[in-house]
Every structure is written in structure tokens, then in C-alpha cells.
């Protein structure tokens, strides 16, 4: 199954987004990578690296980020993993996490989920 990593400046935000995906995506691993080691706001290269390792399966990992350093730090982590099946997705964090994990639980492959999340862009809410 495709797994996910949630990168955020906030530990609580990343953990909550991960929790929010659970009811509809049993079996999909969603590893939060939020905040710095001491719990303060920021993004940690090591925490993101560890989260990807923890989430990794041969079927791939999709990384969803909030903004700024979350995107740049995740990008630098991924540059060290070029031989692995890991991709960053440019999509809304909460909606993307929910939609992506449901798709993963349904058995869709990484490329398909990636494309669906990227194409959907900002989903209209009303």
C-alpha cells in the first residue's frame, strides 16, 4: 500500500492531519513530521527523513507539506533518496491527505494517486 508523510511547521497540525485520515483509510500508514525536535514550530530535516523511512514500502510514499521551509526541507531530504519511490505532492494539505489516503486504502498505485491529487488542485468547497 502507498503510505504518506505529513510535513508541517506544527507538530500538532501534522499529528492531527494524520489522525483525521484514519477513519476512512485503514491500513494506510500516515506518519506526521511536524515541528522541530523540541516541539517548537519549524521543519526538521531529521524528523522528515525518519518519517519517510518509517512510512517507506516498495509501493511508495507520498509527502504532503504545508509551506515555505516544509517544502524546501522535504525537497532536500528527497534529493538524498533519488533511488527510492518517494514523491512530494503539490496539493492542499488536509484535503489531499484525506483524498490520497482513501485512494491508497482502495489499492491505487502511487503514480495514479499523485496525478489525481496534483490535478485536483484546489477542490471547490461550494
Amino acid at each position: 500500500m502507498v503510505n504518506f508523510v505529513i510535513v508541517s511547521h506544527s507538530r500538532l497540525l501534522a499529528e492531527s492531519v494524520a489522525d483525521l485520515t484514519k477513519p476512512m483509510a485503514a491500513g494506510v500508514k500516515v506518519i506526521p513530521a511536524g515541528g522541530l525536535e523540541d516541539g517548537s514550530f519549524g521543519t526538521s530535516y531529521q524528523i522528515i527523513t525518519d518519517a519517510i523511512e518509517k512510512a517507506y514500502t516498495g509501493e511508495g510514499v507520498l509527502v504532503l507539506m504545508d509551506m515555505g521551509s516544509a517544502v524546501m526541507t522535504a525537497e532536500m531530504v528527497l534529493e538524498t533518496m533519488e533511488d527510492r519511490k518517494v514523491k512530494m505532492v503539490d496539493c492542499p494539505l488536509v484535503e489531499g491527505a484525506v483524498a490520497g489516503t482513501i485512494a491508497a486504502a482502495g489499492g491505487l498505485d502511487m503514480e495514479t494517486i499523485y496525478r489525481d491529487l496534483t490535478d485536483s488542485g484546489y477542490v471547490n468547497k461550494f
Partner: protein
Amino acid sequence: MNKEKLILVIDQMADAMESQKEYLTELDNSIGDGDHGINMARGFGEVNKKRDALLKMEAGDMIKNLGMILVATVGGASGPLYGTAFMKAGTYLKGKEDITFDDFLESFQCAIDGVMARGKAVEGEKTMLDAMMPAKRAMEKEWKITGDVKKSLEAGIAAAKAGVEFTKRIAATKGRASYLGERSIGHQDPGATSFTFLLEAIASRI
């Protein structure tokens, strides 16, 4: 410049980030998330802790590893940005035992290219590039005319400072400050400011 001198430059940069910690954070409080000074001081504090290990490396690797330490420990956007800058500069300097001013200028251009690619930014967006790019042009020009390292660095610092002033007059289109739009006008960019302090630190040891 050899590596014994280079470590003194690194010490000076670390001192500057520690002593400007509160000022940079104050600037970042106005238009960002208020962590720039704390983050830079934390990153260079870690560099300081690894001083002995750095000193065992050749010059290019020292700079490259400094960048890797910043990426791992800064925790904000300045981590990947300055980290990439130093990593690119260090990669260019690899194998050079004595760094000439021409080498420095070339490695500086690699740093600028790295920041542009990492931040997907160009000059005029109220970022560190608004100090880095004018500084590079001024140093290159002065170096060509006078061939004097001190004068060239002084010209670079003056241009970086003018760049910082310029960031007060424009709106941010990159980073957290971009959410403020026009309201970011009137405030100087913290990243352009920290770069200017780093350049001053470099110049003070050459």
C-alpha cells in the same frame, strides 16, 4: 585563503549570528514568523560545536559541511536556503587548498544560483537575493578595476546594505511575508539583513 584562516571566518559568522539573534528575530516578527535570528543562531551554534571535525576537512568540504549542518539544524526557511548556498559554494571549492578571490567570487555565484533554485526566487522579491546579487556585482566590478580584495569586499558590503534598504521599498512575493502583500512595504527583509552580517563577518577576517 587557507583552511586555518577559513575556520576563523566561520567563527566570525557564528559570532555575528549569535550577537544579531534578537535583532534578526525582531525584524522577522514584523513580516515573518519571528524565528530568523533564533534559527540562524541555533544553526551556527551547531557549526561551532562541530568546529574540530570541520577543521579536519579540506576547505571546500568545510564549507559544504557547514551547509549540511545548517540544513539539519536551522529549522526554518533559512536552513535549506543558506544550507544550499554553502553546499553549492563548498562543492565548487572542492580540491582548492588556497582559495583566491576569483574562486570566492565563482563560489559566491554558485551560492546565488543555489538559492534561486531552492527558493524558486529571483531578484526583487524581497529576499536575501536582493542583498546577495548586488553584492556579487559590486565585488566583481571593484575586483576588476582595482584588484584589491579589501576594497572589493567593502564594495560588496555597501551594495548589500543598499539592497537591504531596497527591500524596505518593495512588497514581498516570496515566503511568509508574501501573505502580507503591500503591508510588507516599509519593513526590511530579515534574510537580506542576515546575509549582510555574514558578508561583514567574512570581510572582517580577510
